[in-house]
């Protein structure tokens, strides 16, 4: 018997189930959340973001903040429409991630700052929700020692419950959804906290109107 059939057979025998037998109804998912006003969501997200979060009232302000962070270092940005609209992709020192995975990886490995968008921000933990795609990379937010994320201020959700209400199946959208709730960190030796192990040691969030 092939391994798949053998294992399934053993499981069914253990449980007293037959092949194709429908399961008992699953416990309903626990997705209730209390809605909050946009102003409250922005306040919480900025408060709880595990890095430096700023609110930009204009495109110019957002662009200026990113430019001040780049300040002569090498940055790589995902070719995301929001970053394009804000004029971030044409800032001096910014390279645009492009080409195949190998090229993107090489460019990321040589950069000091990675600039991406965040699909959503979670107000309860300040976590970023990032989705990989045609115009958003997995590695730009990981390899450079500094990560700057840009998100529209109306994309703040209360928490995981609201996220999974909006995206019941993230796999329908992307091969990769990553929640970023802090800098790369370890406390593996003597419980001493060290930042920037394999990923960024520094996080920034720019919320744009």
């Amino acid at each position, binding site marked *: 018997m092939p391994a798949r059939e053998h294992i399934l057979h053993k499981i069914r025998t*253990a449980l007293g189930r037959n092949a194709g037998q429908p*399961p008992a109804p*699953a416990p309903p998912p626990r997705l209730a959340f209390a809605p909050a006003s946009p102003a409250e969501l922005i306040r919480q997200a900025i408060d709880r973001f595990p890095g430096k979060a700023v609110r930009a009232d204009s495109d110019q302000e957002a662009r200026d903040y990113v430019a001040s962070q780049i300040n002569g270092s090498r940055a790589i940005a995902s070719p995301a429409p929001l970053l394009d609209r804000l004029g971030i992709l044409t800032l001096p020192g910014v390279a645009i991630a492009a080409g195949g995975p190998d090229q993107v990886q090489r460019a990321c490995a040589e950069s000091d700052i990675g600039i991406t968008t965040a699909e959503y921000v979670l107000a309860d*933990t300040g976590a970023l929700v990032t989705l990989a795609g045609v115009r958003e990379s997995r590695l730009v937010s990981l390899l450079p020692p500094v990560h700057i994320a840009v998100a529209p201020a109306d994309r703040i959700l209360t928490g995981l419950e609201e996220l999974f209400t909006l995206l019941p199946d993230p796999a329908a959208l992307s091969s990769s959804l990553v929640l970023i709730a802090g800098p*790369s960190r*370890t406390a593996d*030796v003597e419980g*001493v906290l060290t930042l920037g*192990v394999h990923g960024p040691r520094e996080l920034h969030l720019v919320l744009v109107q």
Partner: protein
Amino acid sequence: MSAAFRQRIHSALADQQVQEALAAFAGRLMRERRSSVGQEEFPEYQELRAQANLIKRHTMENLDHYLEILCRKVEEHGGQVAWCRDAGEAQAFIGQLARERGVRLAVKSKSMTSEEIGLNEALEHYGVEATETDFGEFIVQLARERPFHIVAPALHKNRRQVAALLSEKLGVAQEEEIPKQTAIARGVLRKKFLEARMGISGANFLVAESGAVVIVENEGNARFTTSAPRIHVAVAGIEKVIPRAADLAVFLKLLGRSATGQPLTSYTSFLAGPRRPGEMDGPDEFFLVLLDNGRSRILADRDKRQTLYCIRCGACLNVCPVYRKIGGYSYPGTYSGPIGAILTPQLSGITYEPELPFASSLCGACAEVCPVKIDIPKILVELRSELRKAERRESRGGFGVQAAGWERIAFAVWAWLMRRPRLFELAGSAAQVLLPADRDGGWIRSLPGPLQAWTRWRDFPPPAAHSFRQLWRQQRRRRD
């Protein structure tokens, strides 16, 4: 108790450095968990535990159904599923895959399941170097040791030991500052990440309806492992499946807090299949290795099935008075602490290390902190009873866990006495008189005769001034 088990325990107890590390860091993880699940910070904690238990129970009771959905979804997203009955099949699948794809170097993110199947050693035979990339795992791999703790693999090593190890194995100068040690590891591993053609990860959850692997971590090495190399292989036990992405709203909140006191760990990756057409990066191929290795056998036991609910947070280790003394290396098998004490006998057979289920005071701290509410003490008692039954079936001497002669006699006398109320009471009064007066704050420091063995390592509670039977009679009299 096997001589090897006893030997490991004694050497852990005698190792001052290990004792200090356990007291400091297991204690710290314990306190961080406790303060993160307080009523104020996390009012829904108990409700979420109940829900997590319910979801795990439902999934285990319908496991074949969810595995079939998972498998179909993984394939829909362009991934492949390798069903493996045991460690050998999993090793062979990954080894042959690596050989066919010409992989010489694989990077690995922390996975207890891959430890369980001895994957790194097996890959060596296929000519593949597998490098652990979690900082703690990297340290124990360099030292050729195994993880000391489920979430903190190098908990037992201090900065001086790490400095010596990095210097010896990597040829760098002795560096005792921990951030600098981390930077050394980052540099070495960064090169490996960029070079490796295969990334091997575990999985904290498998989401059936999405065909997704969910990985929770703090360092970013799992993101690197699953995104940079051309091939991603995820190794997971069949019990890791949960029905829906929405269930993560429950599990992620419990896992981070129970493991390290974090409301959410730095990174949570939700990965479905390889890179899709047009996506900027990600692996070209994705394989899910679904491992049975004894799990379907555990499933067959209605009472002990809940062992499979475990989400490997390590909270039961941190609160366990036994783990906190004997540490991770005393336990046989891959999994240590209370969860190891119930998982190992069921995965490897109850006679593998027969004394293991007895290495517990049944204090219940593990059950109290378990985020999915596994009744570990109850399962320990059941395993003990099964072992005794198996011993009785053996014609000769059992498995070396034979209770001492006087212990059996003592229990026989006890049972006989319990059935004779008057005599029992008399014996109680006699004990009042006969117990030694050598007391420390009421506790008895040493008992006479063969009972000395008990008080050698513990104190004995003094008898109450009035027995329960006396109090009962007084109550009755007062009411009359």
